[in-house]
């Protein structure tokens, strides 16, 4: 059976973030747990399979990847569903309990159409905040992060002043609109405190703080769109912003995540893969010094597989470093020739 319908913009946006769809005008009736859905994105490249994992009279939840698509039309093949279907998918726990999910198709494609070792598209832009000393926007697929650096400047709280090096501070926050459902939590929750700390430590390791004694460097990062890998994106954005602010650094720090699902190492996890609850390795890497400054992992992995997964993340870091270096060099050249002699 086949039905064709167009999605509203809003629906499409949600679709991109989570597998949450409000489907309209479904024609017929039967849907049970375990039914397979095939959703084709018209004119797109990927075909995505989904499985119904929970259903009730008016709603159903399904698992399976959906992609960002510029087209508004989706083609639904498979069993027709009840009217006003409103699927939902929640926390990692539920995911785990529900089903064994297919994250890599037999054809070797991931839920969003990437190959296992393929990274999402990255984009970086220097100079997004006019008042800051340095700023940058960094995008990895649908994850979008903005970073601003102030300083080195006079220490605001004199008691924190360090006499032989600079004080580095970092604040991480997520915009309320960054996730699929609007976040209403106040800032300063445990998660963001932890990520702030992680970013601070990573950046502090590469900034030559002893060159700027009795001063303070503030790094502010905000997540504008969250689609997995926000930690990595934040570190990359912070590096660019620090470079833009002209702060001396030992080396660039870049970061990338990788995971292990369906016995396949996957590079640069997106939200769906991230919330599968499998191992998620985030690596911060200094490409020139060939050193790791950050290594985090959720869940467990055998050591030999872990090495592979980490190596994959490091490869990702190197690729990002090349891109970032290109962007910075281009920016420097621009500034120099515009100023003239």
């Amino acid at each position, binding site marked *: 059976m086949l039905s064709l319908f167009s999605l509203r913009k809003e629906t499409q946006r949600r679709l991109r973030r989570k597998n949450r769809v409000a489907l309209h005008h479904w024609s017929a009736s039967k849907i049970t747990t375990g039914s397979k859905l095939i959703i084709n994105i018209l004119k797109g490249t990927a075909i995505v399979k989904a499985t119904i994992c929970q259903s009730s009279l008016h709603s159903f939840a399904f698992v399976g990847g959906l992609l960002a698509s510029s087209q508004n039309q989706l083609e639904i093949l498979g069993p027709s569903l009840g009217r006003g279907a409103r699927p939902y998918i929640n926390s990692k726990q539920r995911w785990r309990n529900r089903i064994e999910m297919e994250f890599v198709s037999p054809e070797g494609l991931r839920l969003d159409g990437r190959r296992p070792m393929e990274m999402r598209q990255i984009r970086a*832009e*220097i*100079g997004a905040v*006019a008042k800051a*000393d*340095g700023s940058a926007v960094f995008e990895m697929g649908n994850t979008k992060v903005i970073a601003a650096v102030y*300083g*080195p*400047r*006079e220490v605001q709280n004199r008691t924190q002043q360090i006499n032989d090096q*600079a004080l580095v501070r970092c604040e991480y926050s997520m915009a309320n609109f960054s996730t699929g459902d609007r976040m209403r939590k106040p800032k300063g929750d445990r998660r963001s405190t932890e990520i702030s700390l992680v970013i601070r430590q990573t950046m502090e390791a590469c900034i*030559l703080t002893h060159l*700027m004694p*009795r*001063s303070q460097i503030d790094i502010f990062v905000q997540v504008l769109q969250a689609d997995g890998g926000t930690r990595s994106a934040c570190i990359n954005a912070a590096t660019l912003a620090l*470079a*833009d*602010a*002209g*702060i*001396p*650094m*030992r*080396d*660039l720090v870049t970061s990338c995540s990788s995971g292990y699902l369906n016995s396949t190492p996957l590079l640069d996890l997106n939200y769906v893969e991230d919330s599968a609850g499998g191992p998620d390795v985030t690596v911060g890497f200094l*490409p*020139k*010094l060939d050193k790791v400054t950050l290594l985090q992992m959720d869940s467990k992995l055998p050591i030999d597989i872990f090495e592979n997964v980490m190596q994959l993340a490091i490869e990702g870091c190197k690729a990002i470093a090349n891109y970032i*270096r290109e*962007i*910075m*060099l*281009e*920016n*420097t*050249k*621009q*500034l*120099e*020739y*515009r*100023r*003239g*002699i």
Partner: protein
Amino acid sequence: MREIELSLNQTQKIRLKRALEKLESLSSKANSNSNASVSISDSIPVNLEDGVLKGHGTLDLNGELVATVCGVVERVNKLVYVRALRARYKPEVGDIVVGRVSEVAQKRWRLDIHYSQDAVLMLSSMNLPDGIQRRRTALDELNMRSIFEENDVICAEVRGIQHDGLHLQARSQKYGKLERGQLLTVPPYLVRRRKQHFHHLEQYGVDLILGCNGFIWVGEHVEVKDDMVEDQVSKPEQQKSNKNSISLEEQEQTYTPIETRQNICRIANAVRVLSILGFNINIEVIMDTMNLSSSLNLDIHEMLGSEFCVLVAEGEAERRSLTKRKG
């Protein structure tokens, strides 16, 4: 790449692009081999056997010279350093800076001059308003706020770096409090060090101070009275000077004439346009921009529009190509 944030239409975009490309080609011809741009952790090609001196922005990494900032490699004899663009201001002794008072402390003012720390202006390193050279008493200390208050804009000279930070001095009448004007902040790398940083634009009645720290002051012209001369004058003349001070008070009440204020705004906008485009800021370029705007009969607010920016960019490209040919 840092984008210029302007709302341009299609033609303007192309014109701006063309102008910038022209600038690029001009500068790439000028320094094709000597100084190259580097980004962080790029290695700088040097011959280490020659006894190279490692300057700012470089780091020795396993026998390899590596840049620690994004910028341009400069070589002076044996010294190799990287000149960072868009960094905070790095003071040098004798620089003329403009700053804002952030704190009045014991015997000193703390000034924000866009450096990594606040600069210090000691009470003892500036001339008192009465112009007499003497020891600073406790009374002077109590009256410090009558000289400069918090948030006042001040012009001073860099004296040097002592153990407790960067020290400034203001031992001449040309330094001191700046009033009736605008303070503009531009990236410090756009202001080059020159012989002259104070400019009196007579035809406009405007004072222009290009601080080395990227703070630019545009204000109404004030007559500099040299206190050294004043010391020598006899009593009757001192009475005259008293009269002068009364007339000064009257001047306080009278407003700055509207033409002067318009001129201040026009010059300020010229500086803003140049800063948006990232062009070097010096007196000639500012005057060129200003003349261009008045010859086009543009209103002051129109100077910040996209059309004028494109025109300035084209003018700059033209100007640089002309100087090129001469050279």
